[in-house]
């Protein structure tokens, strides 16, 4: 292609991105096709990948195909294995893709589609993909070191320790909030409970098959597993139609919460081959399959977006979660735009697999763009619902009441329309008793996906099956994160605990295993249980906490990245990591501050505790709280949430201060500009 032609094509792509974004931003009072959103996203990704990631690849790291990667140098056939870049890409994407980018944009849709679109696209191009790529490249240059190790070695021991403790804290909040999403999707849904419940014996069956019947035949076992879980979907429908079975499997939120805790504890102490590994394989297939199917479904149907560009809830009065569009849209979307957790993957398995260090660009930057595209699809699915239906599902009962009539009335006062009989009919159509106040994002996402799928295939008769298929998909991969996360948390706790009491750290000593697993489950279980009892739905307080902690980890990763740049002598390019780092610091600090000190009881933990204390003192109890003990527990939980927020904020300050000190001393010349990279080691040229 000639130079002129190429420039012309890129000019067209740029025009496509800006044109579609302008159309999205300027639309008022009419529905707009999802095609505009897809165009804006895809064109922006293309530009960002072609031009921005190129700067990082060639100007900053000077990635060189001739430089031997750790996989090549240290090849041990186990951890370090040189692998084709498409396989690493798939593997890395499957590891970073989780429920985060699906749930976050769904919740953020309460502000309208525009804040979500802008942050998902801009945030990934300048923040999330940059972070994943920089950490991956830095780790590849350091023999695959982990984020914690790099924080310690690049910034200092204080930053390293803070990062380690913060990672554990973030895991706990993450597990709690994901568990809450599952609980809210499964409570009083016999169909969901039976289907998800059956996935456990199915995974065990696969485990036994892989261990004894046909050892190592993972694809066979997965094929059997997939057929069986589709059977479980139908079994769930059948059970929900039998009055006695339906009653038996209709569980309250608290019982589902306890079941999830028991399950995760068992998964953490049982041998991995029995439950964890087979479930993970199954979940990887379902994950990639559903993401591909959703993309196809959206392309075929191109649904209109019924949600307006901006709703009146940007002022902070929204029912789904409290807080204004700044900073809470950025906190809520989390993983679809930037996720600190990815830095753990980028400095975990992936850097040990690259056969050519130039692949880091496609794998680090590229798969994060894919993840962002998943977030765009979730946003489309949520905004394709009418606002009335969206709010009826996502607003807690404390706001919209418990009947279709009260929900419709609330929707009317909010300026949207909802026919009470329509939402009841819709619930029947998807095989649920009710869709009101099914907070957490999973049910509304499932409904949005079911509408897209059934429009593409099967018609409205298939709506219920598609809905429960989508619920099963979300629950399956959330539970996979929960059980594996509990296990990883247990190892981290044992590793920290062994400094205090040596036997606690023995990973194969059963009492230590049981004790540490129980502690981890109790920690996230406490937040989960509190969330289930919370009359405002729990997602309200837990999701922002998760968002803050996740962005905090991203701040740590970007600090590490900036330090790496400066020590490589590339300080003039440090704006690449400093820009998102500064933005995230502003966002997390503002959000943290508001969650702590906002005078509004809806938003601030301390203000809420004060209000409840006042009510207890005057003898009046808050709505939906029955006893003084419950009210006191609510107060305790407010203080606990506040303490966790303070912990995260202090961690940000500690790491930022330590980084600034390090940067200053390098820039002033007090410390030499020396990179800790493994020195260049060229691939021998044949014939030399």
């Amino acid at each position: 292609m000639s130079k002129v032609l190429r420039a012309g094509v890129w000019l067209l792509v740029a025009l496509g991105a800006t044109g579609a974004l302008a159309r999205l931003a300027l639309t008022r009072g009419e529905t707009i096709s999802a095609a505009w959103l897809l165009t804006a996203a895809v064109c922006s990704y293309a530009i960002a990948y072609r031009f921005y990631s190129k700067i990082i690849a060639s100007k900053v790291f000077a990635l060189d195909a001739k430089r031997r990667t750790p996989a090549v140098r240290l090849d041990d056939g186990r951890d370090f294995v040189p692998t084709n870049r498409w396989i690493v890409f798939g593997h890395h994407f499957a590891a970073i893709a989780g429920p985060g980018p699906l749930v976050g944009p769904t919740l953020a849709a309460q502000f309208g589609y525009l804040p979500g679109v802008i942050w998902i696209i801009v945030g990934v191009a300048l923040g999330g993909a940059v972070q994943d790529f920089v950490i991956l490249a830095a780790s590849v240059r350091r023999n695959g070191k982990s984020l914690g190790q790099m924080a310690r070695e690049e910034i200092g021991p204080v930053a390293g320790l803070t990062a380690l403790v913060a990672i554990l804290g973030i895991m706990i909040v993450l597990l709690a909030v994901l568990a809450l999403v599952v609980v809210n999707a499964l409570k009083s849904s016999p169909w969901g409970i039976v289907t998800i419940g059956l996935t456990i014996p199915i995974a065990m069956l696969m485990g036994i098959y892989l261990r004894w019947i046909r050892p190592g035949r993972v694809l066979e076992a997965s094929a059997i597993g997939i057929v069986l879980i589709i059977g479980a979907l139908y079994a769930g429908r059948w059970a929900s139609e039998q009055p006695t079975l339906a009653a038996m499997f209709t569980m309250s939120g608290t019982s589902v919460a306890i079941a999830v805790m028991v399950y995760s504890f068992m998964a953490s102490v049982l041998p991995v081959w029995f439950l964890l590994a087979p479930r993970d394989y199954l979940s990887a297939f379902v994950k990639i399959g559903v993401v591909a199917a959703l993309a196809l479904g959206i392309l075929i149907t191109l649904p209109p977006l019924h949600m307006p560009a901006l709703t009146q809830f940007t002022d902070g009065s929204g029912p789904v979660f409290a807080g204004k569009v700044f900073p809470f849209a950025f906190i809520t979307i989390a993983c679809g735009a930037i996720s600190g957790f990815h830095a753990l993957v980028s400095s975990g398995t992936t850097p040990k697999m690259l056969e050519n260090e130039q692949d880091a660009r496609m794998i680090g930057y590229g798969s994060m763009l894919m993840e962002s595209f998943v977030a765009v699809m979730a946003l489309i699915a949520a905004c394709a619902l009418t606002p009335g239906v969206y709010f009826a599902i996502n607003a807690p009962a404390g706001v919209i009441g418990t009947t279709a009539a009260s929900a419709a009335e609330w929707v009317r006062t909010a300026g949207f329309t909802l026919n009470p009989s329509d939402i009841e009919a819709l619930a029947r159509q998807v095989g649920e008793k009710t869709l009101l106040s099914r907070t957490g994002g999973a049910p509304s996402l499932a409904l949005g996906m079911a509408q897209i799928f059934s429009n593409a295939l099967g018609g409205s008769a298939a709506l219920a099956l598609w809905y429960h298929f989508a619920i099963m998909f979300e629950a399956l991969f959330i539970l996979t994160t929960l059980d594996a996360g509990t296990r990883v948390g247990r190892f981290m706790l044992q590793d920290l605990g062994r400094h205090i009491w040596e036997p606690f750290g023995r990973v194969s000593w059963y009492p230590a295993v049981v004790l540490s697993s129980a502690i981890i489950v109790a920690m996230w279980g406490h937040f989960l249980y509190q969330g289930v009892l919370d009359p405002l739905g729990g997602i309200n307080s837990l999701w922002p906490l998760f968002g803050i902690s996740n962005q905090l980890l991203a701040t740590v990763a970007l600090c590490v990245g900036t330090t790496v740049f400066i020590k490589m002598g590339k300080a003039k390019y440090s704006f690449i990591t400093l820009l998102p780092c500064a933005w995230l610091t502003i966002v997390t600090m503002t959000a943290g501050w508001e969650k702590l000190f906002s005078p509004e009881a809806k938003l601030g933990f301390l203000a809420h505790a004060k209000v409840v204390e006042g009510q207890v003192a005057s003898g009046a109890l808050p709505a939906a709280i029955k006893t003084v003990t419950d009210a006191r527990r609510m107060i305790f939980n407010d203080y606990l949430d506040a303490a966790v927020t303070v912990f995260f904020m202090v961690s940000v300050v500690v790491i930022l201060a330590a980084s600034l000190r390090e940067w200053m001393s390098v820039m002033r010349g007090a410390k030499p500009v020396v990179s800790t990279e493994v020195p260049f080691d060229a691939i021998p040229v044949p014939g030399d």
Partner: protein
Amino acid sequence: MTSREILSETRDRIARAANVVRRIIGVPDYDRYVAHVHAHHPECAPMTREEFIQQRLVDKYSRPGARCC
């Protein structure tokens, strides 16, 4: 090409595709490990397939960074 050749080529293709899928979802690659041990550590006996798979799985689920939210 004879039909037998076509058949064996198809079988090869399926085997290669299956291998790609296995590696994407993170199935430990035993054959590669054995080849590595034979090539670089001829004095060591490689672990058995069961030992290898068990060891890889335990390792995978014991450190953060194998997955995300």
